[in-house]
């Protein structure tokens, strides 16, 4: 039987094991474990899921099933400056769709993708609870309110240096 080569650094394996142990290697804690792993690695590559599978004794197919079910989990690394456009209803009625289109055009990215230089990634998210500022864009932890399509280029510029 052929096998995929899986490579991880020793300290990464140790870290995953440490996370799993901290949740008592309990399979019911899978989502908490994945949260911690994503916090540490920034994303959940196949290799990480394989180690979690071993530690929690959950088939890796099931772990992948969970990872692909929840939109918070990702298997691709986010950009250095992750850009999220709120697509909550309040933002939508105030034109978030056009803002998103503008980001797609400017960055030549689809939602869920990362630029080839790893600088920006684009995602849409559900209500962030800043409806008073709609439409809202977040770059990393910074929130931009009342964003118009015309502002998009300037927002990107801030991070291009």
């Amino acid at each position, binding site marked *: 039987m052929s096998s*995929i080569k899986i490579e991880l650094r020793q300290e990464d394996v140790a870290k995953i094991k440490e996370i799993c142990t901290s949740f008592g290697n309990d399979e019911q804690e899978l989502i908490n474990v994945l949260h911690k792993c994503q916090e540490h690695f920034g994303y959940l590559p196949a290799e990480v899921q394989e180690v979690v599978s071993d530690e929690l004794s959950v088939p*890796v*197919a099931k772990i*992948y099933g969970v990872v692909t079910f929840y939109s918070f989990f990702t298997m691709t690394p986010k950009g250095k400056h992750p850009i999220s456009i709120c697509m909550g209803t309040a933002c939508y009625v105030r034109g978030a769709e056009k803002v998103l289109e503008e980001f797609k055009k400017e960055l030549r990215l689809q939602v869920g993708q990362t630029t080839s230089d790893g600088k920006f990634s684009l995602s849409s998210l559900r209500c962030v609870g800043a409806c008073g500022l709609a439409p809202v864009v977040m770059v990393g932890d910074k929130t931009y309110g009342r964003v118009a399509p015309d502002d998009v280029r300037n927002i990107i510029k801030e991070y291009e240096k």
Partner: protein
Amino acid sequence: METIKLTIDNKKAEVPKGTTIHKAARQMGIEIPTLCYMELHDLNIENKPAGCRICMVEVEGRRNLAPSCATRCEEGMVIKTHTTRVLNARRTVMEFILSDHPKDCLICPKSGNCELQAMANKLGIREIPGQEIAAMSTYRKDTSPSIIRDLDKCILCRRCEMMCNDVQTVGALSAVNRGFMATVAPAFEQNLEYSSCTYCGQCVAVCPTGALTEVDHTPEVLRALADPSKTVIVQTAPAVRAALGEEFGMAPGTLVTGKMVSALRALGFDYVFDTDFAADLTIMEEGTELLGRLNRHLKGDTTAKLPILTSCCPGWVNFFEYYYPDLKDIPSTAKSPQQMFGAIAKTYFAGKIKINRKDLVVVSIMPCLAKKYECQRDEFSTENNRDVDFSISTRELAAFIKQANIDLNNLEEGEFDAPLGESTGAGVIFGTTGGVIEAAVRTAYELQTGKKLERLDFTELRGLEGVREATIDFDGLPVRIGIAHGLGNARKLLDDVRSGKSQFHAIEVMACPGGCIGGGGQPLHHGNSEIIKARAAAIYTEDRKKPLRKSHENPFIIKLYEEFLEKPNSEKAHHLLHTHYFERKKKILVKP
């Protein structure tokens, strides 16, 4: 028992508490159509995710329609199964399902045997509104040594996932993604080949559509048959004869041994042999190995590992190689009957008819999909020539016979060819759970005690209970035997072995529920466990009819040892008939 009174389609009924509407209706002769629901009653297998939403019925007083498969009957319920509202809902849901399903029924391997196709027909669907603007969920096709996954045809009934996880505990498949792109796949939507899949084929056996099918090897077989330079021989597994007739409209449990032989001969095979012969040979080797280990153990040899595990089921071998590599020196080293047959055919028999092994093509007819993988294993080849060249399933054979325009029903009863076609009743019962160990007991008893075994039917070893145990009295020596069918049941016994709790001397494991008669390559049971029971009964009938019922009494086996192998577990026998196992689980490589 507490009962519940209810009304279905204006008919009154009383059912035990806890009964679902679907079952209650069935008891009253009302068959509510469903796609995802499946129950194999005697095997304790049930799939009811209530996901397809075809079996919806109207329950008086409820706001929405209810899924009959997953709704428990309640006192005084008034249910209607075919109101306008129900029929419109069923049709619309069916249109939804079909709108995301390819329409290539004409060339689909499941055509004519597809539950979705049958449902579309039953509901009289003649068009799919909005198809022209409907996007389809599409996925990469995956072909493994045994199984083809074509998920464009998946309707998310989740039966395969349930078999793979709940019944087999293999965990190769899981529901993945969400919403419209949700489907069932191995981790990372990789090929099955890179997963923990054992190729048991139980997912294929329950798939209602063409999403999971076997790799079709009949074209290769046809090519070999057409090649004048090749001598093509065939071996048929015991479970095939008990099921093949179903594909030709015969009642489940009809034995078609003789007709099958005639059909194979008509197809052009030069020799029609029987895997049952190799099953007898397996008993000689495995039985001898068991007695060897047992006697060493009785003498206090702590290196003698017990229990011994049977090794004739390739799905099971794949399973322990993946999940229990630490126990890989416990199973018998005896090859499976299919591979023993191939090894003997390409040496002993090729020598007898004086041809080069490369000009001899060995085809096996198996109730199994893992056999396709097994015969492709590197260790079962000599100089790139496989011991068994091609393995085709019962279903493929049926299709092959139909293609050749052979009318199985009206064929004469043929006889297997000698020398590899002769078998005893012990070889036949390999086809059902408990059969291998029963065959082994019949021979081991006589070899161990030197006495003649009077009682040949060990009913304590038979049945469909998932895990069974029995102690057989070997003339004062109690031999403790465990039996499991279905890999989830096997796991229970294996965990005991691993933890040192197991008290068994020998354990038989079959990967498929019911044993080979319920194999992944058999005619589809469509959720009817009566079919599996009927096949088991047929196997035991065949056994009873045989003049010889103990493997070591098979005259051709005796002759084989005399002429070729010397004695069981001889050096030559070891070389040809035994194998070794590998750790199959991928290792996580750690970078320094």
